[in-house]
C-alpha cells in the first residue's frame, strides 16, 4: 500500500492508495503513527479517494488513528470515502464519530 503525506499549519493530510485489509493495515499503522509522533498534528486528514477496498481491518486502522488523535486532543477527518467504505464505517457507527468530507467532484 502506498501513501503520500503532507503537513501544513498543524494539519497532516495522508493520501492512501490501495487496499486496506489486515495484510496492509499493520505496516501502514506503523508508518502513519511514526509520522503522527514526528509531526504532532492538531488535525489528521485521511484521504481515502484512492482506497479500492476496505474491510473491518481497515476499519480497525481508522478507529485506531481516531482514538490516538482524540486522546491527544486533536481531531480527524476522512476525505472522500467510497460507497463500500462508507458502508463499513456506518455499520460500526464510525460516521457518527468522525467527520467525513467530500471534495468537489468526488463520487459518493
Amino acid at each position: 500500500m502506498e501513501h503520500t503525506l503532507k503537513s501544513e499549519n498543524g494539519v497532516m493530510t495522508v493520501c492512501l492508495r490501495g487496499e486496506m485489509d489486515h495484510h496492509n493495515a499493520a505496516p501502514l499503522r506503523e508508518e502513519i503513527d511514526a509520522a503522527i509522533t514526528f509531526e504532532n498534528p492538531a488535525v489528521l486528514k485521511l484521504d481515502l479517494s484512492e482506497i479500492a477496498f476496505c474491510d473491518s481491518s481497515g476499519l480497525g486502522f481508522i478507529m485506531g488513528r481516531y482514538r490516538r488523535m482524540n486522546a491527544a486532543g486533536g481531531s480527524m477527518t476522512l476525505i472522500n470515502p467510497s460507497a463500500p467504505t462508507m458502508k463499513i464505517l456506518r455499520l460500526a457507527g464510525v460516521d457518527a464519530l468522525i467527520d467525513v468530507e467530500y471534495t468537489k467532484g468526488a463520487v459518493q
Partner: protein
Amino acid sequence: MNTLPQNRFKCIFPARSVNESFARMAASAFVAQLDPRVDELADLKTAVSEAVTNVIVHAYAGTEIPPEERVVILCGELREGRLAVFSVKDRGKGIENIKQAREPLFTTSAAEERSGMGFTVMETFTDKIKVTSRPGKGTSVRLYKRFSE
C-alpha cells in the same frame, strides 16, 4: 429446491496474510460469470476477506500445527437462482464459543486493533452465514449470497 451446484471451485492456500487479496479476487472472479452488480460484488469481496482474515489471524494462533499444515480452504458454488455459496475452512484450533465470537465488537486481539466486526460484516454483507466449528479440528464459515438479476 434444487441445490446441486451449477459450477464450483476449490482452492487451498497457506494461511498467510498476503493471500487475503488473492482469496477475495478468486471469489470475485468466480461470480463474474453472473455479471453481478458492482455493489454486490464489493459486498462479497468484503465478506470473503473477513472470513479468510479470521483464519489467518485466529485459526492457528497459539497452536503447534506446523506451518505447511496451516491452510485456508476456499470453496465456491453457484446454485440455481443466482445463489453463490462460499465456504472458508481451516484445520485449526476451532472456536469454543461461536455465539460470543459472532457478537459485534467481540475480539480476542484488541491490542492489534482488531475491530471485532468481522462476523457482523459477513452477516450484513451476505444473505446468510453458517458457522460450524470443532475444537481442535477446525472451523467452517459458509457465506450465502444471492445476486440480483
